[in-house]
């Protein structure tokens, strides 16, 4: 076994860390598989239109009739009974205008987003299966509301790996603690490496959030490096004892990644290098209603720019059964400007063309209400709106429609499964081929459903 000897000699002259791994490959048993990180970038199934994705999660169900689905009939019949005697039709609460060159209808509630109308691909024929927040949110994130399944971000990471190994590949900013909680960014039966990393939660502003164990409160970087060198010295020795085993190489690599992540992640999270102009554009500033969401959006841009595959940002509750007007207004004040700023920023940096941005909630709202003051809307999963922008979708484009009041999708309907299939398609993945065998069956994000909505692909 003289190759072990030469291996050891070589190792003595090698410095710690990454150089070692390349070297280790040389020294492996001839046909032993080299260690590859499960997170290493992978070839997509076909050419990707989007390389990464940001999901702007409007939790609680924003009203399509107040945002992107123009219903003049609702204004005409305001206060009259809707489909049942006891429920009265609620008029749209904001003015409507056609925007941009495309003439896409967007209400005044989202004035900032409206300026990007020509970039938006509005899906107004969305529908899903269940109208309670929690299961609906789980279906939105995992495709299934009854069983624990991997989240979309986990599937994407499993399918594509991630570009920057010093950062998590899938980050969920300020996710809710309820409504399925961790399941919304979990990996279920996929290996745990594909689960999302949460930063903050819905009750902890992202400004105050920390990623677990990213900092050592006790040792200086130099001290820790010295400690790590000792650990890696032992690890390399241990790895040598079995030239066919790549597991220990994986351990060694994960320590080096972790060590670098300690520097890189806090620096991505630190907005100090951003100009005041940028901060203002995102609506970031103490006391501003858009501060938290603005920070999330800016972080999302910084993260995907640094090579994170999938980022989700999350807003508070758009669930106005009552006080629709003030409630939706507050949500818009929190999210509208940052959303527009994100689109502007991505465009300026040339990132929008291969970054898919998705906006929406777990469902929409009803055209009618049981409230006498006509200031509220309830859950509606049969027809609602989401929009996509960037990464390979048509801009200034509306696809699908609800009936004249907005009760349900009637034309060019897109089920959540179809949306999932389309998102994967844009990312270069075939939803029927992105499978994982668990307990004897090949599972998919779309289960046995899903149609790629080719009509919206640019």
């Amino acid at each position, binding site marked *: 076994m003289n190759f072990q000897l030469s291996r050891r000699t070589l190792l003595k002259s090698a410095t710690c860390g990454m150089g070692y791994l390349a070297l280790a490959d040389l020294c492996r048993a001839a046909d032993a598989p080299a260690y590859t990180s499960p997170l290493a970038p992978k070839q997509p199934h076909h050419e990707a239109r989007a390389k990464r994705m940001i999901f702007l999660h409007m939790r609680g169900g924003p009203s399509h009739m107040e945002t992107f689905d123009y219903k003049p009939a609702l204004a005409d019949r305001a206060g009259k009974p809707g489909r049942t005697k006891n429920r009265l039709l609620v008029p749209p609460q904001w003015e409507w205008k056609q925007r941009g060159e495309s003439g896409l209808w967007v209400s005044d509630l989202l004035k900032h987003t409206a300026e990007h109308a020509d970039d938006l691909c509005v899906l107004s024929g969305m529908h899903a299966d269940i109208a309670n927040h929690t299961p609906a949110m789980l279906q939105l994130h995992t495709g299934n509301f*009854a069983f624990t399944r991997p989240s979309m971000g986990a599937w994407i990471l499993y399918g594509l790996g991630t570009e920057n190994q010093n950062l998590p590949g899938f980050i969920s900013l300020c996710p809710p603690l309820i409504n*399925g909680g961790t399941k919304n960014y979990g990996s279920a039966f996929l290996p745990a*490496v594909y689960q999302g990393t949460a930063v903050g939660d819905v009750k902890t502003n992202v400004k105050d959030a920390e990623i677990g164990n990213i900092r050592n409160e006790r040792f200086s970087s130099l001290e820790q490096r010295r400690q790590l060198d000792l650990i890696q010295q032992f690890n390399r020795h241990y*790895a040598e004892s079995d030239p066919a085993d790549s597991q220990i190489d994986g351990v060694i690599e994960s*320590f080096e990644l972790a060590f670098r992540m300690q520097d890189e992640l806090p620096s991505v999270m630190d907005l100090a290098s951003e100009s005041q102009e940028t901060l203002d554009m995102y609506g970031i500033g103490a006391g501003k209603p858009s501060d938290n969401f603005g920070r999330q959006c800016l972080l999302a841009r910084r993260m995907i720019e640094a090579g994170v595959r999938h980022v989700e940002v999350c807003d508070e509750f758009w669930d106005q059964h009552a006080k629709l007007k003030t409630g939706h207004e507050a949500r818009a004040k929190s999210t509208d400007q940052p959303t527009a700023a994100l689109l502007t920023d991505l465009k300026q940096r040339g990132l929008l063309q291969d970054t898919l941005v998705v906006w929406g909630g777990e469902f929409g709202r009803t055209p009618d209400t049981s409230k006498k003051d006509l200031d509220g809307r309830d859950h509606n999963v049969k027809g609602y709106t989401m929009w996509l922008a960037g990464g390979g979708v048509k801009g200034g484009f509306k696809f699908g429609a609800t009936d004249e009041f907005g009760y349900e999708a009637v034309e060019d309907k897109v089920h959540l499964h179809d949306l999932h299939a389309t998102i994967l398609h844009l990312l270069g993945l075939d939803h029927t081929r992105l499978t994982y065998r668990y307990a004897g069956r090949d599972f998919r994000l779309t289960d046995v459903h899903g149609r790629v909505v080719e009509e919206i692909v640019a």
Partner: protein
Amino acid sequence: MRYALFALLSVGFAATIQADEMPSDQQIRFFETKIRPVLVKHCYSCHSAESEEIKGELQLDTRAGIRLGGESGHAVVPGDVQASLLINALRFEDFEMPPKNKLDDDVINDFVRWVKMGAPDPRDGPMAEVESTPAETTELWSLQPIAAPAPPQTNSDWPRTDIDRFIEAQRAAEGIAPVADADRLTLLRRLSFDLTGLPPTPEQIDQFLADSSAEAVASLIDRLLASSAFGERWGRHWLDVARYGESAGNSRDVLMPYAWRYRDYVIDALNADMPFDQFVREQIAGDLLPADSKETSRRQQIATGFLAIGSKSLNGGNLELDIADDQIDVIGKSMLALTVSCARCHDHKFDPVPTADYYALASIFRSTDTLYGGSTNRPNNLPDKLKVYLPLGGDDFDKKQFAEQQKEIGELSKQLAQARKQADNLAKRLPDDWKAKRVALKEMEEVSAEDRKLLGQIKAFEEKNREAKQLEAQVAELRQNLPQPELAIGVRDAKTIRDWPIQLRGEKGKNGDVAPRGFLSCVALPDPPTITATEQSGRVELAQWITHPEHPLTSRVIVNRVWHHLFGSGLVRTVDNFGVNGEPPSHPELLDYLARRLSHELDWSLKSLIREIVLSRTYQLASDYSEEAYATDAENRLLWRMNRRRLEAEPLRDAVMLAAGTLDTSRPAGSLVLKIGEGEVGRGINTKILDEPFPYRSVYLPIIRGIVPEPLRLFDLPEPSNVQGQRDATNVPAQSLYLLNSPFILEQADAAAARILASGDERDDRLKLLYQICLGRQPSDEERAAGAEFLDQMARDKPADADNAAHAQRAWSMLCQGMFARAEFRFLD
């Protein structure tokens, strides 16, 4: 060898290359340049494993597939152009392929040439599973009766046990030599972790090394099997496949404060070496089994928690059917390694499980009430609790006495409130300094009338106050002694026992034929139990059916799980799937031998089974590398060495704490979830207690499905809602960050350092102790030097104003942490 091994393993279609038909390099080049690209471009989209739907059951992406052909016949018959339907189709004769455009004649001629030269094809590997009809799957190996193979005869003196004889026969047939036996310390550490989930302590190491008798290993094994840590280790293995959790999980994460009783039941059953068939029967039908004592009846009720602890979608959906589905799923996967629940909406695509069988089982569980603790409205009084929980002992709980006592408490409480109010009123009339005044008045010889009045008032107050205190004590005592049933989650038979209709496509309300209660039709048993009783759900019969000694799955599945936990890989590697999509066993005869031995000779004793396996020479091999053996069997399917395995999350955390001296190996009462009480994650429950130090073994950490404890979550605890008998072993930065930076690891390192520093003054002795408590061995010279160098360097860098002792503690703490973090600590050789 690889091909031969493949043939040995496969039961289905395996076109193997015989040595004499190995294609030449030139032939392979022809295939690679002329044939394969055309297949990929024009055929694979419909006829490969990657196809959305494999058309005509024809698969052209493997040698096996192209020769077997599809529905119409063989696609390629080497050397026979006429019989090769592929050529027929390319020529657009009886078939026309590719369907849109006929390929160029040049290309077709290449295919003709290729077939004539014998269709050389290097694409080995099995075909992807095609949808097969149940007629073919009756051949499924796992459903065949369990054979009674005799251990192979051998002249070799290598085998120590019958297990070794099976292993050796197969290994020798491939000409592979085993590596050497493991050294004693390696074996000690392996056995300790495998049997108890804990590393050996320095005392245990000394004890074992001091025992030079021939029975040293056997008596070590017996000692470990007898330790209560055994059940904590092996109980957790079962909890993985029982999808154990302490909250509803999925949508509304409602806590299940009594789920822990089931956890403790499992641990106790393993420790008591309860026969596995009894263990299964109790979990499925414990409430219906005869019991000779209250203790037994209580235990059997708790056992049915198995059916109640699954995760549930409490916020919409189809709860009643989903619960039955979860029960069918967990029984199917954990006990039979079959994905029965696939048949909820359609006949199973791969395995011989028709929808009717699924609903036969569903009828059993829909005739069962599952008391899982209720939904989002949490019960806060006993009557409400009794609607959603199972009272243990049943009749022991005296409802009449409970009512009477509650009434009495009510009355006394009223009196108490009144007495308190009166006392308060009396107190108000007293001056603030009445206590001092009374002392002063006692000293005085003469007391004024005014003061006398004051004394009277004081006396009146004190009497009332005493009365209130007495009442308070009485109420407290009554409350204390209120007859409280112990609550658990589990099942009992429903009031209505009936056969339910098939739900078409799994949807509620779309009724098909009625499915009489029953079992899986694909399993043939001599004298199978049948469900005839109309007053019982049929769970007893189901349990008898599963534990029938001739059941082809039950004993094979558990034997394989045990093997998996001891070798890191099962004889059947797909431990949860013995169906068509699973892998066939590497050693079918050994599997049957062990299965039959467990069910017919060892009285289903898992401890005896484990004992026999770990006493084998195969188990006691070193994990050494062998170039020759590796070249033939890289995956070590033939067990020429022991696999190097990563410790799971629980033994890793336990080992850190044991080394630090902070582990309390006793069992905590209940669970932290019980202490948190009724409620729902994220909605008003106080979970602060989860952040407090938890000194007990990891198996007792609370498994709230939405808040899985960090050290378990990071190190691949399976998603607690899913059955998963084989854990992942990932290596990711989040784990490294945890080992480098988490407050928990830093604290444990501090404790370990303090322990080592207190043990003596000699650096060398300290280093020895460090290695003993962390790795169960002595440091090598190199390691001793590296450790010393690290300490020296730390000493040189000591700031001038730093305290010597504190600095030494810091240096040693870093060293201890380094030991916890190093790979060897979390791998088992």
